């Protein structure tokens, strides 16, 4: 078969195929990726002439089989995943059987859809940049097909010109077009979620600590709270089986209710409960202390990190453990504004939940129990014993490390008396165990601690390695935060995890490429913070640009220009974008200006050519007018005068500007006269 593609087109197609497949790697089943690789190999082999293209029948059968296989393969992962896989399959198969320009067109169109699907999952500025690169690659494929004759640098020039010219209009459209609400519920992918999980055992947070992935960013309207008080609450765990902390069935039920969109019902229930028992707390109304905006990275769950204490608002639910949930899972970078209150005035604890906060596995950890018994024997009360435990963490040879030794069956015993090395979960877990053993209601809270301020102190970046676990105990009729880690590694609380570690090389070990590992390098640090800032602005102004922001922005523009109204402003913006485009493309200032006398002649000629005589090539104007005078109804003398005058204006030397003007007026009159007589 004749290869209709040039080497350039094929390389571009291969490149964009590879790029798009890499972009979607996270979303694709491994079988699909292998299939994609095979497709690419096959196509290259076709190009080099080693194998032939598949024929139509085989391709069709193949397509059907593959589609069925793909659906069977990813059926569990939900509609979106099936959609992505099917589009990728079509993309791969089209890539395999590129036979004509039309196939390439289909390929490019599918490519655009895949880039859009990629953007469903990824929205950071970096990813958007990569998506843009793939879009440009796809456009270059078109150029290599339809502007073959151009040299590479010319193609590059043309593409950049076209892209740059398209930007203003695109931006104006983006800014002014109102955002429509979702028309129907879109399928979500049952994706492996990132970030905190709903069970914690020593080890799981250590894994998170190895990730420098962004969890969320926050900016405050008021003062930014000190690092040591920035406890971002996410989850409460109150069930312990001796190894792992999980949520009790009560909490799980609440989470379940949120997932099916029934959050508020629970809130009402708790209010009723509260009104019966703790009237005193309703009297003190919570006051707003601060307000902050969170831009959260997609984690495909309902979690919404919040500082103590938040309130339920539209679309959000406050659970009985004070943690905040969104009614819809966070599947894209999303902004939330949360108000911070000095106390929580709605929910108090039910007897069941307090009882749950005392739950412990029966048996086990004899050494710890013995230690408690000793302390009790010395006449200390429960809270004092807990303080003793914290003092023990502080004074004895406990270490804060992300690489603790493995613990045996008797986890608490092992940690407390043998290894004495661990991180937040170990300390929290041990403290909890002791507290519960002492009959003090206690629960584990997981979330994030701290976060890094950008250079201008505008916003905080909280990363997965900021994940933390701490404890709350029930004391004086309220939950009080205790962070056992602070007694081992106070730097962890005040400055961040890197400073908290006894051996700082443990931080992000194995991630040499991670820019966060090299926080000591000032240049890299600057670069990192500049990038973080750009990404933050991107999240605020692009990803979370909505009708509200749009309205504010346009209102601000209007303030400066009181004579404008909104619709005219929008129209003006659109018009100016369009005119920039048109002016730039046609460059009217560069076109040669036709001299006035020629313009007048052309006016005359347009009419005469239609009705009488076409001017031959090389025929002078005088000759033409003469020939015309023989044919038309117009007075011959007028035509001859016209030619004479024309020649005078055109060729007479030393014609002053005023003379010239006068003659032109005359010529114009003649032209009009003749035209009338035709």
């Amino acid at each position, binding site marked *: 078969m004749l290869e209709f593609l040039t080497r350039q087109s094929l390389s571009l197609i291969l490149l964009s195929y590879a790029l798009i497949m890499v972009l979607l790697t996270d979303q694709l089943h491994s079988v699909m990726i292998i299939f994609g690789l095979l497709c690419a190999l096959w196509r290259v082999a076709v190009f080099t002439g080693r194998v032939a293209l598949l024929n139509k029948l085989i391709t069709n059968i193949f397509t059907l089989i593959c589609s069925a296989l793909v659906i069977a393969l990813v059926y569990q992962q939900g509609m979106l995943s099936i959609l992505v896989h099917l589009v990728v399959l079509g993309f791969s198969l089209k890539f395999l059987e590129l036979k004509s320009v039309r196939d390439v067109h289909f390929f490019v169109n599918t490519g655009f859809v895949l880039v859009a699907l990629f953007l469903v999952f990824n929205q950071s500025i970096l990813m958007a940049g990569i998506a843009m690169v793939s879009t440009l690659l796809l456009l270059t494929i078109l150029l290599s*097909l339809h*502007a073959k004759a151009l040299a590479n640098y010319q193609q590059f020039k*043309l593409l950049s010109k076209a892209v740059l010219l398209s930007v203003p209009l695109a931006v104006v459209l983006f800014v002014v*077009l109102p*955002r429509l609400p*979702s028309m129907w519920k879109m399928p979500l992918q049952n994706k492996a979620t990132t970030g905190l999980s709903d069970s914690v055992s020593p080890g799981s947070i250590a894994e998170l600590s190895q990730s420098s992935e962004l969890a969320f960013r926050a900016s405050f309207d008021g003062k930014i709270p000190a690092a040591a008080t920035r406890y971002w609450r996410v989850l409460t765990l109150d069930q312990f089986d001796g190894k792992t902390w999980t949520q009790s069935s009560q909490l799980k039920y609440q989470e379940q209710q949120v997932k099916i969109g029934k959050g508020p019902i629970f809130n009402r229930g708790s209010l009723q409960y509260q009104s019966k028992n703790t009237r005193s707390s309703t009297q003190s109304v919570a006051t707003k202390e601060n307000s902050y905006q969170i831009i959260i990275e997609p984690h495909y769950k309902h979690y919404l990190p919040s500082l103590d204490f938040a309130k339920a608002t539209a679309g959000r639910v406050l659970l009985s453990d004070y943690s905040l949930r969104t009614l819809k899972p966070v599947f894209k970078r999303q902004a939330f504004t949360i108000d911070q209150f000095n106390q929580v005035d709605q929910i108090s604890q039910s007897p069941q939940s307090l009882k749950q906060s005392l739950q412990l596995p029966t048996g086990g950890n004899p050494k710890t129990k013995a230690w408690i018994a000793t302390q009790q024997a010395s006449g200390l009360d429960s809270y004092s014993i807990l303080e003793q435990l914290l003092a023990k963490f502080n004074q004895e040879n406990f270490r804060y490390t992300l690489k603790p030794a493995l613990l045996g069956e008797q986890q608490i015993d092992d940690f407390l008396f043998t290894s004495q090395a661990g991180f937040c979960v170990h300390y929290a877990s041990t403290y909890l165990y002791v507290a519960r053993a002492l009959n003090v209601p206690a629960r584990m809270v997981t979330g994030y601690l701290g976060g890094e301020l950008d250079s201008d102190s505008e916003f905080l970046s909280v990363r997965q390695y900021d994940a933390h676990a701490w404890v709350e105990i029930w004391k004086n009729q309220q939950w009080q935060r205790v962070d056992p880690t602070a007694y081992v590694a106070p730097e962890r609380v005040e400055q961040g995890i890197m400073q908290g570690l006894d051996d700082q090389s443990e931080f992000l070990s194995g991630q040499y490429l991670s820019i966060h590992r090299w926080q000591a390098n000032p240049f890299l640090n600057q670069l990192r913070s500049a990038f973080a800032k750009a990404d933050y602005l991107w999240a605020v102004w*692009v990803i979370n640009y909505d009708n509200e922001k749009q309205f504010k922005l346009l209102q601000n523009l209007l303030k400066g220009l009181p004579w404008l109204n909104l619709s005219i402003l929008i129209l003006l913006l659109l018009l100016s974008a369009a005119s920039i485009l048109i002016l730039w493309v046609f460059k009217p200032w560069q076109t040669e200006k036709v001299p006035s006398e020629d313009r007048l002649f052309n006016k005359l000629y347009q009419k005469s050519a239609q009705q009488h005589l076409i001017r031959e090539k090389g025929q002078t104007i005088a000759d033409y007018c003469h020939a015309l005078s023989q044919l038309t109804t117009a007075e011959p003398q007028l035509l001859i005068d016209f030619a004479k005058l024309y020649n005078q204006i055109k060729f007479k030397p030393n014609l002053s500007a005023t003379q010239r003007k006068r003659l032109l007026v005359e010529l114009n009159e003649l032209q009009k006269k003749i035209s009338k007589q035709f």
Partner: protein
Amino acid sequence: MIVHKLKALKAKYFERWLSKRMPAVEQITLNRSNTFIFPSRFGGMLLATCLVMFLIGTNYQNNLILLLVFFLLSFMVTCLLFSYQNLSGLNLTAVASDDQFTDQASIFRLRVNAKKGDAQQIQYFFKNSTSNINSVVDQQSVQLFAKSTQRGWFKPGRVTVQSYYPFGLFKVWTYLDFGFSCLLYPAPLENKLQSITLSGKETAIGGHQKKVGFDTFNHLKPFQQGESLKSIAWKQVAQGKGFFTKQFEQEIGGDVYLSLSALKGVSLEDKLAMLTYQVINYQQQGVRYGLDLGQVVIKVDTGASHQTTCLRAIALYGLNNA
């Protein structure tokens, strides 16, 4: 049947509209008033894709997808202008075409004059394409091909000029009437009917005329500087008579009259094709020939213009559009 009729009717009205809007011209500069532009099939596909992406973007409330859609739409607007700019200002001039034969594709020429960098990837072909090859394009001219089996005046009709440059998103095109026409001679049909044409009508002046040639020796003439040494009569030089050159001459064949009526047993078109062959043949041989077509009689003569006259007469025989 009705669909067919409707189509024909539509074509007719379109043709009428076209000829009103763009009458036949010899030279034309493409501009707004004489070009059409519309999204190509691919452009339409991309618009549909944009709609799909818009739905995805709206439903996922994803601004980046919307931004991508807006960018692609805006890119299409840019392409619209680029595509138009590529074709606009293109100046085409028709070149008068020579007479040609029916058995091969006739060539029509256009002179192309474009701004630097513009007029990329333009396709030229006759709207009613009849030839396998449509055109050969080079820097400054275009050769268009059309084929007809009918002798006589051939009008290939409007020329389509179109381009998908630069991204294939838009088709810019126009149908231009350059009033192209050329005379088609019947394709020569090889035959050996010499004897028939040497009939009684032949004026037997010929047969004895001589002209300078190479065949037979005639006489000696004094040598002149510059004459070939090969033709020097060395014998005479040896005899001491001085330098002479040998002069040769050859006989011219007899004048012939080619007559349509002398050909029998074949169809008229074949007869004309045979005559065409003979005209060409005799012209090549240098034989003086005349042509008798019944209504038209051309006297014996020779030379290129005589050949053209004869061929034209044959081509137009019996046609009323002479």
